[in-house]
């Protein structure tokens, strides 16, 4: 049970252009809350700062201003506090071909987080947990998959391994940065459904970052629309999609593939 809160997050990047330096405000005054059992979708065009928010929440980058709270307390950035934070907040990366180390087996990828966060476990117990995780993401036979290396798996299978790795420490909050955008269309829904099932089982707070309004509406309770580093619209999923207020959301919703409207247009024309 973890509640993660972002308060007025700002992130500036310093750009070097020749001798003059410039600043780029990638994230501008962003606040939201991730609660157990709820899915928040973060949508926005490329370069709007979605991944930067993920990096801030995972403490891979330091915010220029603003703070991140876990259960109401500011996060700690080093030592035991950081280790506890790593156990609570986990991430599924966008590209399953890049997020698994080609040199190591699936077992290594799942075993490391278990050992890091439960150092007292015996080796056979760790192995049992690895197999259990693989079964939970529906990769069977688990023994067989555990011995493989990433290049021997398909994209969808790799992304399931990445999801299993994120679940390994037993987190309360999961951040999924475009988890299916690199996958074939035919298997996207399977992976998203798996994420939704696991979220329900574990009562996870889920931040679902995506370009895709349709899946955002289907899977999320709340939608945040980002435009140039700012959150320009937020609210209940159906509300945002059906009655968009901001100009940008309107174009986005109009551009989303909508078979029913397309059909009626064809009939009318």
């Amino acid at each position, binding site marked *: 049970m973890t509640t993660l809160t972002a308060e007025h997050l700002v992130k500036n990047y310093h750009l070097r252009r020749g001798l003059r330096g410039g600043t780029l405000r990638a994230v501008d005054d962003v606040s939201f809350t991730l609660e157990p059992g709820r899915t928040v979708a973060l949508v926005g065009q490329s370069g709007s700062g979605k991944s930067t928010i993920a990096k801030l929440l995972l403490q891979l980058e330091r915010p220029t201003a603003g703070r991140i709270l876990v259960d109401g307390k500011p996060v700690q950035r080093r030592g035991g506090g950081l280790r506890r934070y790593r156990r609570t907040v986990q991430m599924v990366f966008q590209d399953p071909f890049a997020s698994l180390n080609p040199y190591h087996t699936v077992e290594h990828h799942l075993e490391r987080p278990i050992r890091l966060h439960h150092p007292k476990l015996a080796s056979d117990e760790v192995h049992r947990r690895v197999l259990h995780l693989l079964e939970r993401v529906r990769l069977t036979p688990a023994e067989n998959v555990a011995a493989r290396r990433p290049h021997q798996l398909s994209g969808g299978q790799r992304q399931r391994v990445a999801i299993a*790795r994120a679940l390994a420490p037993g987190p309360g909050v999961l951040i999924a940065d475009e988890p299916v955008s690199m996958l074939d269309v035919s298997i996207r829904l399977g992976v998203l459904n798996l994420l939704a099932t696991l979220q329900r089982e574990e009562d996870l707070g889920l931040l679902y970052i995506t370009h895709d309004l349709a899946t955002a509406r289907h899977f999320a309770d709340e939608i945040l629309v980002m435009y140039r580093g700012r959150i320009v619209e937020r609210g209940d999923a159906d509300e945002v999609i059906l009655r968009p207020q901001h100009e940008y959301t309107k174009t986005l919703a109009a551009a989303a593939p909508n078979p029913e409207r397309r059909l009626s247009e064809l009939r009318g024309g």
Partner: protein
Amino acid sequence: MALTTQAAGPVGLPAGSAPQPTRRRRLGLPPMTAKLATGLIISGAIVLFGLLGPFVVQDPARVDDIGLTGPSGAHLMGTTQTGQDVLAQLAYATRGSLTIGAIVGVLTLLLSGFFGVVGAYAGGWVDEFFSLCTNIMLVIPGLPLVIVISSYVPDKSLWLVALVLSLTGWAGSARVLRGYTLSLRNRDYVLASRVAGEKRWRILAVEILPNLIPLLASQVVFAVIFAILGEAGLAYLGLGASGSISWGTMLYYAQNGLALRLGAWWWFVPPGLLLALFGAALSLINFSIDEIINPKLRNQTRSARRGWVMSRKQLETAKEATL
């Protein structure tokens, strides 16, 4: 905007296709090709000769008054102008050249690994400082510096020559390693292990270094070739290590003793041939390693291409099917 929800059913893997990664693959070794095998056999034989040869041959320094004589029963590879046994000299020279190669290989690995990999991984001012050092060493012309240092120090040991050669040779490798490490350290799997809570040094040792092994290996092999050829060049110019003998010093003495003019091929051909063979063998090994780093270099072998050809029977059935 209706979405149907599929049941998140199990994704079964085809049973029975249990991938048993071979030991070679798991250890990251290159696949055994004809190129690699040839390189390994030739360089292995030369290394064995350098290791064991000195124990079985005669004393290379013993002077005899028989002078320059061709191969015979007493001296399998003949003698030099001063009646020294060429085979014995060759064995010690091989050991000397290989020692230089080994020392320079290890020193280059350490120096370029430290300045290239650690610098790039640490980032920030450490990286700035390390690449400044690398760039300075890179623009200092190597061979002239070696000649200057060598001619300044009158009494040079094998170690000094090796040290000078590695000091002038590591910078290129360090640059190559730095570039690759910079690309590795921002890979998602490195970020993922940070998110998992791995320690920084462990990420470098366990997640990044294994992926650098092929590149490190090829850099070391290259450094060894460079060192052995460089030392031979120095020795041939009379700037080699004093008190020890290498392929280069043998060639130097053969040249001084007018071996070429006197037609004493048994004196200069063996060291020259070993030098060329060892360089070629290491290059072959290096090509095989390069093919792992850069799969684009992997060309089809002729036998693989032959597999594409249809047999006559297949052709006939194909023709029937189209008619």
